[in-house]
């Protein structure tokens, strides 16, 4: 199958930028990343359809010269789905901004708990309710930190 190099390169750049932006903290940037990524992948679908040709249903081209219409239908569907997703993410970013005055993706509960645990472990043991034999097992280094 012949492949259009320009399309492949564009697809690669769009996907790479999209992935980079999706790793950002702000939901708005994630949204832009999502847009770029989905456009890149739609291009990949177009690449998968093979070389360009005459339109498939309009006019009376020879079937051998026609472009493959199926991937075009897939891309249309994908675009519509992305549109819906974008609308929903925008609404969520807006709601997040209403509630928190920012639209950052927040830490998940477990991560936050582990971080708090690490901080409290490192700074003090003064919260200890009662001391126990178990504490002896701790390394001297950790004792120094308290």
């Amino acid at each position, binding site marked *: *199958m012949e492949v259009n190099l320009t399309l492949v390169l564009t697809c690669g750049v769009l996907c790479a930028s999209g992935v980079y932006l*999706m790793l950002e903290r702000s*939901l708005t940037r*994630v949204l832009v990343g*999502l847009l770029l*990524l*989905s456009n890149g*992948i*739609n291009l*990949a*679908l177009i*690449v*998968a*359809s093979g070389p360009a040709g005459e339109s498939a249903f309009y006019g009376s081209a020879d079937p051998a010269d026609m472009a493959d219409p*199926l*991937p075009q239908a*897939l891309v249309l*569907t*994908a675009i519509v*789905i992305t549109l*819906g*997703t974008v609308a*929903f*993410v925008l609404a*969520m970013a807006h*709601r*997040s901004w209403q*509630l*928190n005055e920012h639209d950052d*993706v*927040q830490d*998940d*509960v*477990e991560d936050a*708990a582990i971080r*708090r*645990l690490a901080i*409290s*472990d490192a700074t003090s043991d003064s*919260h*200890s*309710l*009662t*001391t*126990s034999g*178990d*504490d002896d097992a*701790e390394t001297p280094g950790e004792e120094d930190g308290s």
Partner: protein
Amino acid sequence: MNEYAGLVPIPVLLPLLGSGAALMMSRWPKAQRTVSVVVLTAVVVVAAVLLWAADQQGPQVLWLGGWRDLGIALVADRLAALMLLVSAIVTLAVLLYSLGQGMTGDEAETPVSIYHPTFLTLVAGVANAFLAGDLFNLFVSFEMLLFASYVLLTLGGTSARVRAGTIYVVVNVLSSMLFLVAIATTYAAVGTLNLAQVAVRFDELPPSTSLMIQLLLLTTFAIKAAVFPLSLWLPDSYPTAPAPVTAVFAGLLTKVGVYAIIRVQTLLFPESPLSGLLLWAALATMLIGILGAIAQSDIKRMLSFTLVSHIGYMILGIGLATEAGLSGAIFYVAHHITIQTALFLVVGLIERRAGSTALLRLGGLARLFPLLGVLFFVPAMNLAGIPPMSGFIGKVGLLQAGLDEGTWLALLLVAGGTLTSLLTLYAVAKTWALAFWRSPEQAHEMARLLSDPEADDVPDAAPPMVAHRGHVHVGAVAFGRDDVSAAREVHDNDSGERDLHQKLQAGSLPDRLPWLMTWPTAGLIGVSLALTVLAGPLYGYTDRAAADLTSRTPYLTAVEQGAGE
């Protein structure tokens, strides 16, 4: 052979039409409720007929619009029909439950005008995913159910739900994008997306190309199915949703991913089972999931982690890639859909009756509300795999398949599966002991002690408390710092949330549970017990389904013949 093909699209069409009708009737909640119940009952009936037809006459295939070979095929084979029936029963039960919740004036939790149309769309998406005979149709059905789930998860738009929803949406959008890449690659490689045609043409592909597509598809579905290490989004996003929503998500959405893995592994890549990779993933999912469950101090979060953990059992069956393994996995999916949904519904009942699901605030539920105790105890024991319940039968089937395989990795998985089962028992027993067994006064005392250890009036009977590296051991149970600070909040702040003991004394608990919430839950538990009684015939059925999957011919010939008609 194909007499019942006309019924195949009904489980998708009816909920979609019902969804539209419900949306138009948003001003008449009663009419909406009627539409939803009638539609879902009809889907249960149709799914039962399809199950019978698929078992007696082979896969029922319908090419939509009569576009032979070019259109979209819907296929109901034994596996799809079973999944369809179980999911239809579960969604009907959850819908009735949420009606009960709505009738108690809890409209903020489940606003009827949006809830019903969205719920029906979710059902249509799930049914379409089971029936799809085409990769792109599978993608579309995933999007249908995901969109519905986005809305359901963020109902009301509270801060916690928006936080959970953000993670959920971003992760799922990413997995959808991966799925699209896999679809584009497949189309470029073989020029079709119909599963049966792809299956035939993949045999001629170079192994490296098909391996790449296989890994792409597996990653996509592993995110949906919450297989470790792609499971971390799940325990964070599910527990914040309203109880019926969490229940239906936990029961169905991950299983749709598992179903998709079974389908592509058996149909498209029979030559490349990737046993090593899948078995290691299964082991990690089981153990890490259940260790997470043990560490939780909230029943909802605990159950979300057991959900992840038990996905590992199904992946174990798929990874073995033997008929016995697949049969066990299918049985386990059917069992787990009912049991996990039932448990989340019970937790919804606990939340409603006792005002909280945090273990720190609960106690004495078994004595106060015996019905609730029974409703929790039976499915919890079933989840842990106590004989003779269906959880036990499913696990024995899977472990037996592992022993038959006999490789050291399979044996390691058998050991891991047994350990996970025991740890599940520990996790639910801990919940039982704290929330149901001890008295509310004990719970209150313990929380008070946690919050103020220097208090003078420590009763002699109080369990010994030991502070150690960031958490507090009380008796045999460990509480993290978060729980301690939560306990402080309860007692430092009069206006804050109260625990069950305080609520009992203040008399601020709701009078009783609405029967429409209790009965669907009891019914679902009844279904799970029926799975135990009917385990013989059901296992026979899943054996036949697994034989169909490994031989591939029934599916392939049915789709081909369907195209000829």
